[in-house]
Protein backbone atom coordinates (compact mmCIF):
# COMPACT_ATOMS: atom_id res chain seq x y z
CA UNK A 1 0.00 0.00 0.00
CA UNK A 2 2.90 2.37 0.84
CA UNK A 3 4.35 1.74 -2.63
CA UNK A 4 1.02 2.54 -4.30
CA UNK A 5 0.57 5.73 -2.25
CA UNK A 6 4.13 6.87 -2.97
CA UNK A 7 3.70 6.46 -6.71
CA UNK A 8 0.26 8.09 -6.47
CA UNK A 9 1.95 11.04 -4.73
CA UNK A 10 4.58 11.30 -7.51
CA UNK A 11 1.74 11.12 -10.03
CA UNK A 12 -0.18 13.90 -8.24
CA UNK A 13 2.91 16.13 -8.25
CA UNK A 14 3.40 15.43 -11.98
CA UNK A 15 -0.29 16.16 -12.62
CA UNK A 16 -0.25 19.46 -10.71
CA UNK A 17 2.99 20.47 -12.47
CA UNK A 18 1.48 19.56 -15.86
CA UNK A 19 -1.78 21.44 -15.36
CA UNK A 20 0.06 24.49 -13.98
CA UNK A 21 2.40 24.41 -16.96
CA UNK A 22 -0.36 24.36 -19.60
CA UNK A 23 -2.27 27.28 -18.05
CA UNK A 24 -2.56 30.40 -20.22
CA UNK A 25 -0.35 33.42 -19.65
CA UNK A 26 -1.98 36.32 -17.81
CA UNK A 27 -4.16 38.83 -19.61
CA UNK A 28 -1.61 41.61 -19.14
CA UNK A 29 1.16 39.41 -20.61
CA UNK A 30 -1.10 38.61 -23.56
CA UNK A 31 -1.65 42.33 -24.04
CA UNK A 32 2.11 42.85 -24.10
CA UNK A 33 2.65 39.98 -26.55
CA UNK A 34 -0.20 41.14 -28.77
CA UNK A 35 1.22 44.64 -28.97
CA UNK A 36 4.66 43.47 -30.11
CA UNK A 37 5.63 44.89 -33.50
CA UNK A 38 5.27 42.45 -36.38
CA UNK A 39 8.98 42.84 -36.96
CA UNK A 40 9.78 39.83 -39.13
CA UNK A 41 7.30 40.85 -41.80
CA UNK A 42 8.67 44.38 -41.76
CA UNK A 43 12.19 43.04 -42.22
CA UNK A 44 11.08 40.91 -45.18
CA UNK A 45 9.17 43.83 -46.71
CA UNK A 46 12.12 46.20 -46.19
CA UNK A 47 14.46 43.63 -47.74
CA UNK A 48 12.21 43.27 -50.76
CA UNK A 49 11.94 47.09 -51.13
CA UNK A 50 15.72 47.58 -50.98
CA UNK A 51 16.23 44.87 -53.64
Amino acid at each position, binding site marked *: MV*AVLTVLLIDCIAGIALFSFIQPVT*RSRYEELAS*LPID*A*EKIVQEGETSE
Partner: protein
Amino acid sequence: MMTTESTLALAIFLATVLFLLWRPKEINEAIPPAIGATLLYCLGIVSFTDMRYVFDTVTGASITIISTMAMSIVLESMGFFRWVAFNLVAKSEGSGTRLYWNVILLCFLTTMFFNNDGSIVITTPIIIEIVNILELTPRQQFPYLLSGAIIATASSAPIGVSNLANLIALKIVGVDLITHTKYMFVPSMMGLITISILFFLYFRKDIPLRIPAFSRVCMLLYRRNIHNYDRPPKHDHPPKHDHPLANSKKQAHSINWVMFRVYMTVIIVVRVCLFIFSYYGIPIEGVAALGALIVILIRWCSQGTGISDVLKKTPWHVFIFAFGMYLVVYGLHNAKFTDLIIQWIKEPVSANLGNAILIIGILVTVMASLFNNHPSIMLGTIIITNMGLAQNYFQIAYLAIILGSDVGSLILPSGTLASLIWMFILKNNGIAVTWKQYIKATILIIPIGLLVSLLSLYWWTLLIS
Protein backbone atom coordinates in the same frame (compact mmCIF):
# COMPACT_ATOMS: atom_id res chain seq x y z
CA MET B 1 23.63 -28.23 -32.56
CA MET B 2 20.56 -26.55 -34.05
CA THR B 3 17.41 -28.57 -34.61
CA THR B 4 15.19 -28.16 -37.67
CA GLU B 5 12.68 -26.34 -35.48
CA SER B 6 15.20 -23.82 -34.18
CA THR B 7 16.63 -23.27 -37.69
CA LEU B 8 13.13 -22.54 -39.02
CA ALA B 9 12.32 -20.26 -36.09
CA LEU B 10 15.55 -18.34 -36.63
CA ALA B 11 15.01 -18.11 -40.41
CA ILE B 12 11.45 -16.77 -39.95
CA PHE B 13 12.61 -14.33 -37.30
CA LEU B 14 15.46 -13.01 -39.48
CA ALA B 15 13.18 -12.74 -42.53
CA THR B 16 10.59 -10.84 -40.45
CA VAL B 17 13.19 -8.38 -39.15
CA LEU B 18 14.72 -7.99 -42.62
CA PHE B 19 11.36 -7.18 -44.23
CA LEU B 20 10.48 -4.89 -41.35
CA LEU B 21 13.66 -2.85 -41.84
CA TRP B 22 13.55 -3.02 -45.63
CA ARG B 23 9.78 -2.52 -46.02
CA PRO B 24 9.64 -2.95 -49.82
CA LYS B 25 7.12 -0.60 -51.46
CA GLU B 26 6.58 0.97 -48.00
CA ILE B 27 4.43 -1.96 -46.87
CA ASN B 28 2.69 -1.55 -43.54
CA GLU B 29 4.95 -2.51 -40.62
CA ALA B 30 2.31 -4.97 -39.34
CA ILE B 31 2.55 -7.20 -42.44
CA PRO B 32 5.98 -8.90 -41.92
CA PRO B 33 5.27 -9.90 -38.27
CA ALA B 34 1.76 -11.09 -39.21
CA ILE B 35 3.14 -13.35 -41.97
CA GLY B 36 5.98 -14.55 -39.71
CA ALA B 37 3.55 -15.44 -36.92
CA THR B 38 1.24 -17.27 -39.31
CA LEU B 39 4.16 -19.33 -40.65
CA LEU B 40 5.32 -20.23 -37.15
CA TYR B 41 1.84 -21.42 -36.23
CA CYS B 42 1.43 -23.41 -39.45
CA LEU B 43 4.83 -25.07 -38.88
CA GLY B 44 3.84 -25.96 -35.30
CA ILE B 45 6.66 -23.95 -33.70
CA VAL B 46 4.14 -21.95 -31.67
CA SER B 47 1.05 -23.66 -30.35
CA PHE B 48 -2.49 -22.43 -29.86
CA THR B 49 -1.74 -22.18 -26.11
CA ASP B 50 1.24 -19.91 -26.90
CA MET B 51 -1.06 -17.79 -29.07
CA ARG B 52 -3.54 -17.52 -26.21
CA TYR B 53 -0.75 -16.45 -23.81
CA VAL B 54 0.58 -13.83 -26.23
CA PHE B 55 -2.96 -12.65 -27.03
CA ASP B 56 -3.71 -12.17 -23.32
CA THR B 57 -0.45 -10.28 -22.78
CA VAL B 58 -0.86 -8.00 -25.80
CA THR B 59 -4.60 -7.46 -25.34
CA GLY B 60 -4.17 -5.88 -21.89
CA ALA B 61 -1.66 -3.37 -23.24
CA SER B 62 -3.74 -2.78 -26.38
CA ILE B 63 -6.98 -2.07 -24.50
CA THR B 64 -5.18 0.42 -22.25
CA ILE B 65 -3.66 2.19 -25.28
CA ILE B 66 -6.99 2.22 -27.18
CA SER B 67 -8.75 3.63 -24.11
CA THR B 68 -6.19 6.42 -23.80
CA MET B 69 -6.55 7.09 -27.53
CA ALA B 70 -10.34 7.31 -27.19
CA MET B 71 -10.00 9.86 -24.38
CA SER B 72 -7.42 11.75 -26.41
CA ILE B 73 -9.71 11.88 -29.48
CA VAL B 74 -12.57 13.21 -27.35
CA LEU B 75 -10.27 15.89 -25.88
CA GLU B 76 -9.12 16.77 -29.39
CA SER B 77 -12.71 17.10 -30.64
CA MET B 78 -13.49 19.64 -27.90
CA GLY B 79 -10.50 21.81 -28.81
CA PHE B 80 -8.38 20.99 -25.75
CA PHE B 81 -5.17 20.38 -27.72
CA ARG B 82 -5.55 23.64 -29.62
CA TRP B 83 -6.04 25.47 -26.33
CA VAL B 84 -2.85 23.95 -24.86
CA ALA B 85 -1.03 24.74 -28.11
CA PHE B 86 -2.09 28.43 -27.86
CA ASN B 87 -0.79 28.59 -24.30
CA LEU B 88 2.57 27.05 -25.16
CA VAL B 89 2.90 29.35 -28.17
CA ALA B 90 2.32 32.37 -25.91
CA LYS B 91 4.79 31.03 -23.32
CA SER B 92 7.49 30.61 -25.97
CA GLU B 93 7.39 34.41 -26.54
CA GLY B 94 8.54 34.02 -30.13
CA SER B 95 11.73 32.13 -29.29
CA GLY B 96 12.25 28.81 -31.10
CA THR B 97 14.64 27.71 -28.35
CA ARG B 98 12.16 28.44 -25.58
CA LEU B 99 9.48 26.62 -27.55
CA TYR B 100 11.78 23.57 -27.84
CA TRP B 101 12.28 23.37 -24.05
CA ASN B 102 8.57 23.99 -23.44
CA VAL B 103 7.75 21.04 -25.73
CA ILE B 104 10.30 18.86 -23.91
CA LEU B 105 8.81 19.79 -20.52
CA LEU B 106 5.26 19.20 -21.74
CA CYS B 107 6.16 15.71 -23.01
CA PHE B 108 8.05 14.82 -19.83
CA LEU B 109 5.25 15.90 -17.48
CA THR B 110 2.54 14.25 -19.61
CA THR B 111 4.38 10.91 -19.51
CA MET B 112 4.94 11.20 -15.76
CA PHE B 113 1.22 11.84 -15.26
CA PHE B 114 -0.19 9.36 -17.82
CA ASN B 115 2.17 6.84 -19.50
CA ASN B 116 4.36 6.79 -22.61
CA ASP B 117 1.63 5.69 -25.04
CA GLY B 118 -0.89 8.10 -23.52
CA SER B 119 1.66 10.88 -23.69
CA ILE B 120 2.31 10.23 -27.39
CA VAL B 121 -1.40 10.36 -28.28
CA ILE B 122 -1.86 13.56 -26.26
CA THR B 123 1.33 15.53 -26.95
CA THR B 124 1.75 14.75 -30.67
CA PRO B 125 -1.52 16.50 -31.69
CA ILE B 126 -0.56 19.45 -29.45
CA ILE B 127 2.87 19.76 -31.10
CA ILE B 128 1.24 19.46 -34.55
CA GLU B 129 -1.13 22.30 -33.58
CA ILE B 130 1.82 24.42 -32.38
CA VAL B 131 3.89 23.99 -35.56
CA ASN B 132 0.82 24.69 -37.71
CA ILE B 133 -0.20 27.79 -35.76
CA LEU B 134 3.35 29.15 -36.02
CA GLU B 135 3.53 28.26 -39.73
CA LEU B 136 6.85 26.46 -39.33
CA THR B 137 8.38 24.83 -42.39
CA PRO B 138 8.65 20.99 -42.47
CA ARG B 139 12.36 21.33 -41.68
CA GLN B 140 11.59 23.51 -38.65
CA GLN B 141 8.73 21.25 -37.52
CA PHE B 142 10.77 18.04 -37.33
CA PRO B 143 12.96 18.93 -34.29
CA TYR B 144 9.89 19.64 -32.16
CA LEU B 145 7.97 16.58 -33.33
CA LEU B 146 10.82 14.09 -33.00
CA SER B 147 12.35 15.40 -29.75
CA GLY B 148 8.89 15.53 -28.19
CA ALA B 149 8.13 11.94 -29.17
CA ILE B 150 11.49 10.65 -27.95
CA ILE B 151 11.22 12.43 -24.59
CA ALA B 152 7.58 11.33 -24.19
CA THR B 153 8.65 7.70 -24.58
CA ALA B 154 11.95 7.80 -22.69
CA SER B 155 10.32 9.58 -19.72
CA SER B 156 8.55 6.35 -18.85
CA ALA B 157 11.70 4.95 -17.22
CA PRO B 158 11.77 6.90 -13.90
CA ILE B 159 8.56 5.45 -12.43
CA GLY B 160 7.31 1.93 -13.02
CA VAL B 161 3.71 2.77 -13.88
CA SER B 162 4.57 5.06 -16.81
CA ASN B 163 5.06 2.18 -19.23
CA LEU B 164 3.06 -1.00 -19.73
CA ALA B 165 6.27 -2.86 -20.56
CA ASN B 166 7.68 -1.82 -17.15
CA LEU B 167 4.56 -3.16 -15.42
CA ILE B 168 4.93 -6.54 -17.15
CA ALA B 169 8.56 -6.74 -16.04
CA LEU B 170 7.75 -5.58 -12.48
CA LYS B 171 5.22 -8.39 -12.22
CA ILE B 172 7.60 -11.09 -13.54
CA VAL B 173 10.65 -9.99 -11.53
CA GLY B 174 8.78 -9.02 -8.36
CA VAL B 175 10.41 -5.61 -7.85
CA ASP B 176 8.12 -3.13 -6.08
CA LEU B 177 7.34 0.35 -7.38
CA ILE B 178 9.34 2.15 -4.66
CA THR B 179 12.51 0.15 -5.35
CA HIS B 180 12.07 0.84 -9.04
CA THR B 181 11.72 4.62 -8.47
CA LYS B 182 14.53 4.72 -5.88
CA TYR B 183 17.04 3.15 -8.26
CA MET B 184 15.74 4.45 -11.59
CA PHE B 185 14.77 8.07 -11.08
CA VAL B 186 18.26 9.60 -11.05
CA PRO B 187 19.86 7.43 -13.81
CA SER B 188 16.95 7.85 -16.20
CA MET B 189 16.79 11.60 -15.55
CA MET B 190 20.49 11.82 -16.45
CA GLY B 191 19.72 10.01 -19.70
CA LEU B 192 16.72 12.25 -20.43
CA ILE B 193 18.69 15.45 -19.84
CA THR B 194 21.51 14.15 -22.09
CA ILE B 195 19.07 13.21 -24.87
CA SER B 196 17.26 16.59 -24.68
CA ILE B 197 20.52 18.54 -24.88
CA LEU B 198 21.91 16.36 -27.69
CA PHE B 199 18.71 16.72 -29.75
CA PHE B 200 18.86 20.48 -29.22
CA LEU B 201 22.47 20.59 -30.44
CA TYR B 202 21.70 18.23 -33.34
CA PHE B 203 18.77 20.36 -34.54
CA ARG B 204 20.21 23.79 -33.58
CA LYS B 205 20.32 24.93 -37.21
CA ASP B 206 16.68 23.93 -37.82
CA ILE B 207 15.27 25.45 -34.63
CA PRO B 208 14.43 29.08 -35.46
CA LEU B 209 15.91 31.69 -33.12
CA ARG B 210 12.87 33.95 -33.61
CA ILE B 211 9.57 32.68 -34.99
CA PRO B 212 8.38 35.22 -37.62
CA ALA B 213 4.65 34.46 -37.27
CA PHE B 214 4.64 34.77 -33.47
CA SER B 215 3.58 38.41 -33.08
CA ARG B 216 0.80 38.01 -35.62
CA VAL B 217 -0.47 34.85 -33.94
CA CYS B 218 -0.51 36.48 -30.51
CA MET B 219 -2.39 39.47 -31.83
CA LEU B 220 -4.98 37.24 -33.51
CA LEU B 221 -5.43 35.07 -30.44
CA TYR B 222 -5.76 38.11 -28.23
CA ARG B 223 -8.30 39.74 -30.53
CA ARG B 224 -10.36 36.57 -30.48
CA ASN B 225 -10.21 36.55 -26.67
CA ILE B 226 -9.63 32.78 -26.72
CA HIS B 227 -9.21 32.52 -22.98
CA ASN B 228 -12.52 34.31 -22.29
CA TYR B 229 -10.84 37.07 -20.31
CA ASP B 230 -13.59 38.97 -18.51
CA ARG B 231 -12.89 42.29 -20.24
CA PRO B 232 -12.76 42.87 -23.98
CA PRO B 233 -9.23 43.36 -25.39
CA LYS B 234 -7.89 46.92 -25.37
CA HIS B 235 -5.95 46.58 -28.61
CA ASP B 236 -7.87 45.63 -31.68
CA HIS B 237 -5.53 46.20 -34.57
CA PRO B 238 -6.56 44.43 -37.75
CA PRO B 239 -3.93 41.96 -38.98
CA LYS B 240 -1.87 43.15 -41.93
CA HIS B 241 -1.50 39.67 -43.40
CA ASP B 242 -3.68 36.60 -43.47
CA HIS B 243 -2.99 33.73 -41.11
CA PRO B 244 -4.79 30.36 -40.83
CA LEU B 245 -6.30 31.58 -37.56
CA ALA B 246 -7.61 34.78 -39.09
CA ASN B 247 -9.96 33.21 -41.60
CA SER B 248 -11.61 30.36 -39.79
CA LYS B 249 -13.85 30.50 -36.78
CA LYS B 250 -13.13 26.85 -36.17
CA GLN B 251 -9.41 27.46 -36.03
CA ALA B 252 -9.47 29.69 -32.96
CA HIS B 253 -12.65 28.80 -31.13
CA SER B 254 -12.59 28.81 -27.35
CA ILE B 255 -13.36 25.55 -25.62
CA ASN B 256 -16.49 24.57 -23.71
CA TRP B 257 -15.27 24.97 -20.13
CA VAL B 258 -18.14 23.07 -18.52
CA MET B 259 -17.46 19.99 -20.66
CA PHE B 260 -13.72 20.50 -20.21
CA ARG B 261 -14.12 20.22 -16.42
CA VAL B 262 -16.34 17.14 -16.77
CA TYR B 263 -13.84 15.34 -19.03
CA MET B 264 -10.85 16.29 -16.90
CA THR B 265 -12.62 15.07 -13.76
CA VAL B 266 -13.34 11.71 -15.40
CA ILE B 267 -9.74 11.40 -16.63
CA ILE B 268 -8.26 12.23 -13.20
CA VAL B 269 -10.66 9.86 -11.41
CA VAL B 270 -9.75 7.07 -13.87
CA ARG B 271 -6.06 7.77 -13.29
CA VAL B 272 -6.43 7.52 -9.50
CA CYS B 273 -8.57 4.37 -9.88
CA LEU B 274 -5.80 2.75 -11.94
CA PHE B 275 -3.52 2.83 -8.89
CA ILE B 276 -6.12 1.84 -6.34
CA PHE B 277 -7.68 -0.97 -8.40
CA SER B 278 -4.30 -2.40 -9.46
CA TYR B 279 -3.47 -2.71 -5.74
CA TYR B 280 -6.52 -4.97 -5.36
CA GLY B 281 -5.53 -7.01 -8.43
CA ILE B 282 -8.18 -5.58 -10.78
CA PRO B 283 -6.71 -5.37 -14.33
CA ILE B 284 -5.90 -1.78 -15.29
CA GLU B 285 -7.15 -2.29 -18.84
CA GLY B 286 -10.68 -2.77 -17.45
CA VAL B 287 -10.51 0.54 -15.56
CA ALA B 288 -9.04 2.35 -18.58
CA ALA B 289 -11.70 0.92 -20.92
CA LEU B 290 -14.49 1.94 -18.53
CA GLY B 291 -13.08 5.48 -18.34
CA ALA B 292 -12.94 5.74 -22.14
CA LEU B 293 -16.49 4.45 -22.41
CA ILE B 294 -17.76 7.06 -19.92
CA VAL B 295 -15.98 9.88 -21.78
CA ILE B 296 -17.41 8.70 -25.14
CA LEU B 297 -20.91 8.41 -23.62
CA ILE B 298 -20.73 11.91 -22.13
CA ARG B 299 -19.72 13.30 -25.53
CA TRP B 300 -22.50 11.37 -27.25
CA CYS B 301 -25.12 12.71 -24.80
CA SER B 302 -23.83 16.30 -24.83
CA GLN B 303 -22.78 16.74 -28.46
CA GLY B 304 -24.41 13.82 -30.26
CA THR B 305 -21.03 12.68 -31.62
CA GLY B 306 -20.75 8.91 -32.02
CA ILE B 307 -17.80 6.55 -31.94
CA SER B 308 -16.88 6.64 -35.63
CA ASP B 309 -13.97 9.10 -35.25
CA VAL B 310 -12.50 6.95 -32.46
CA LEU B 311 -12.69 3.83 -34.64
CA LYS B 312 -11.22 5.68 -37.60
CA LYS B 313 -8.32 7.30 -35.73
CA THR B 314 -7.19 4.22 -33.78
CA PRO B 315 -4.02 2.61 -35.22
CA TRP B 316 -5.31 -0.97 -35.36
CA HIS B 317 -2.30 -2.14 -37.36
CA VAL B 318 -0.03 -1.37 -34.39
CA PHE B 319 -1.79 -4.05 -32.34
CA ILE B 320 -1.46 -6.58 -35.17
CA PHE B 321 2.24 -5.66 -35.24
CA ALA B 322 2.55 -6.17 -31.46
CA PHE B 323 0.76 -9.53 -31.55
CA GLY B 324 2.66 -10.83 -34.59
CA MET B 325 6.07 -9.71 -33.37
CA TYR B 326 5.49 -11.11 -29.89
CA LEU B 327 4.59 -14.46 -31.44
CA VAL B 328 7.67 -14.49 -33.71
CA VAL B 329 9.87 -13.85 -30.67
CA TYR B 330 7.98 -16.48 -28.70
CA GLY B 331 8.91 -18.91 -31.48
CA LEU B 332 12.57 -18.09 -30.84
CA HIS B 333 12.07 -18.75 -27.13
CA ASN B 334 10.36 -22.08 -27.89
CA ALA B 335 13.34 -23.00 -30.08
CA LYS B 336 15.60 -22.56 -26.97
CA PHE B 337 17.33 -19.38 -28.14
CA THR B 338 17.08 -17.86 -24.68
CA ASP B 339 19.17 -20.79 -23.37
CA LEU B 340 21.77 -20.02 -26.01
CA ILE B 341 21.92 -16.33 -25.01
CA ILE B 342 22.19 -17.31 -21.34
CA GLN B 343 25.18 -19.55 -22.15
CA TRP B 344 26.90 -16.70 -24.00
CA ILE B 345 26.47 -13.95 -21.43
CA LYS B 346 26.22 -15.72 -18.06
CA GLU B 347 29.92 -15.59 -17.25
CA PRO B 348 30.62 -11.92 -18.11
CA VAL B 349 27.32 -10.78 -16.53
CA SER B 350 28.10 -12.60 -13.26
CA ALA B 351 31.64 -11.15 -13.15
CA ASN B 352 30.75 -7.71 -11.76
CA LEU B 353 27.91 -5.19 -11.48
CA GLY B 354 29.20 -2.88 -14.22
CA ASN B 355 29.30 -5.78 -16.69
CA ALA B 356 25.81 -6.90 -15.68
CA ILE B 357 24.33 -3.43 -16.27
CA LEU B 358 26.09 -2.77 -19.58
CA ILE B 359 25.65 -6.22 -21.13
CA ILE B 360 21.98 -6.61 -20.18
CA GLY B 361 21.17 -2.99 -21.10
CA ILE B 362 22.81 -3.23 -24.52
CA LEU B 363 21.38 -6.71 -25.20
CA VAL B 364 17.82 -5.52 -24.51
CA THR B 365 18.44 -2.38 -26.60
CA VAL B 366 19.46 -4.50 -29.59
CA MET B 367 16.52 -6.87 -29.10
CA ALA B 368 14.01 -4.04 -28.59
CA SER B 369 15.27 -2.15 -31.64
CA LEU B 370 14.92 -5.24 -33.79
CA PHE B 371 11.65 -6.63 -32.53
CA ASN B 372 9.94 -4.12 -30.22
CA ASN B 373 10.34 -3.59 -26.48
CA HIS B 374 7.36 -5.68 -25.31
CA PRO B 375 8.69 -9.09 -26.46
CA SER B 376 12.27 -8.06 -25.68
CA ILE B 377 11.28 -7.32 -22.06
CA MET B 378 9.78 -10.80 -21.95
CA LEU B 379 13.01 -12.37 -23.29
CA GLY B 380 15.16 -10.16 -21.05
CA THR B 381 13.29 -11.13 -17.88
CA ILE B 382 13.34 -14.83 -18.86
CA ILE B 383 17.11 -14.56 -19.42
CA ILE B 384 17.93 -12.92 -16.07
CA THR B 385 15.48 -15.15 -14.19
CA ASN B 386 17.18 -18.30 -15.52
CA MET B 387 20.71 -17.03 -15.09
CA GLY B 388 20.93 -17.81 -11.40
CA LEU B 389 22.15 -14.32 -10.47
CA ALA B 390 22.55 -13.14 -6.85
CA GLN B 391 19.50 -11.15 -5.63
CA ASN B 392 21.18 -7.71 -5.80
CA TYR B 393 22.59 -8.40 -9.29
CA PHE B 394 19.21 -9.72 -10.36
CA GLN B 395 17.37 -6.51 -9.39
CA ILE B 396 19.97 -4.26 -11.00
CA ALA B 397 19.93 -6.39 -14.16
CA TYR B 398 16.15 -5.87 -14.23
CA LEU B 399 16.68 -2.08 -14.05
CA ALA B 400 19.15 -2.31 -16.95
CA ILE B 401 16.43 -4.15 -18.90
CA ILE B 402 14.04 -1.24 -18.26
CA LEU B 403 16.61 1.28 -19.53
CA GLY B 404 17.26 -0.81 -22.65
CA SER B 405 13.53 -1.22 -23.21
CA ASP B 406 12.42 2.39 -22.52
CA VAL B 407 15.44 4.36 -23.78
CA GLY B 408 17.51 2.07 -26.03
CA SER B 409 14.45 0.90 -27.97
CA LEU B 410 14.05 4.38 -29.47
CA ILE B 411 16.76 3.84 -32.08
CA LEU B 412 14.21 2.38 -34.54
CA PRO B 413 10.51 3.31 -34.85
CA SER B 414 9.60 -0.36 -34.41
CA GLY B 415 11.26 -0.33 -30.97
CA THR B 416 8.16 0.87 -29.14
CA LEU B 417 4.45 0.87 -29.94
CA ALA B 418 4.46 4.56 -28.96
CA SER B 419 6.87 5.40 -31.82
CA LEU B 420 4.67 3.53 -34.32
CA ILE B 421 1.57 5.33 -33.00
CA TRP B 422 3.49 8.62 -33.33
CA MET B 423 4.24 7.92 -37.01
CA PHE B 424 0.60 6.99 -37.56
CA ILE B 425 -0.66 10.27 -36.00
CA LEU B 426 1.79 12.28 -38.12
CA LYS B 427 0.69 10.47 -41.29
CA ASN B 428 -2.98 11.13 -40.44
CA ASN B 429 -2.14 14.82 -40.14
CA GLY B 430 -0.38 14.93 -43.50
CA ILE B 431 3.14 15.05 -42.04
CA ALA B 432 5.40 12.56 -43.79
CA VAL B 433 8.26 11.29 -41.64
CA THR B 434 10.25 8.39 -43.06
CA TRP B 435 12.11 5.73 -41.10
CA LYS B 436 15.32 7.10 -42.63
CA GLN B 437 14.69 10.61 -41.24
CA TYR B 438 13.90 9.14 -37.84
CA ILE B 439 16.91 6.81 -37.67
CA LYS B 440 19.34 9.45 -38.97
CA ALA B 441 18.82 11.44 -35.76
CA THR B 442 18.21 8.67 -33.23
CA ILE B 443 21.17 6.45 -34.24
CA LEU B 444 23.54 9.19 -33.07
CA ILE B 445 21.77 10.37 -29.94
CA ILE B 446 19.97 7.42 -28.34
CA PRO B 447 23.08 5.22 -27.83
CA ILE B 448 24.80 8.10 -26.00
CA GLY B 449 21.71 8.73 -23.86
CA LEU B 450 21.48 5.02 -23.09
CA LEU B 451 25.14 4.79 -22.14
CA VAL B 452 24.81 7.80 -19.81
CA SER B 453 21.74 6.18 -18.19
CA LEU B 454 23.46 2.80 -17.75
CA LEU B 455 26.64 4.32 -16.30
CA SER B 456 24.53 6.55 -14.02
CA LEU B 457 22.66 3.44 -12.86
CA TYR B 458 25.99 1.81 -11.99
CA TRP B 459 27.28 4.80 -10.01
CA TRP B 460 23.92 5.55 -8.41
CA THR B 461 23.60 1.92 -7.28
CA LEU B 462 27.06 2.04 -5.70
CA LEU B 463 26.19 5.35 -4.02
CA ILE B 464 22.91 4.33 -2.40
CA SER B 465 23.62 0.66 -1.67
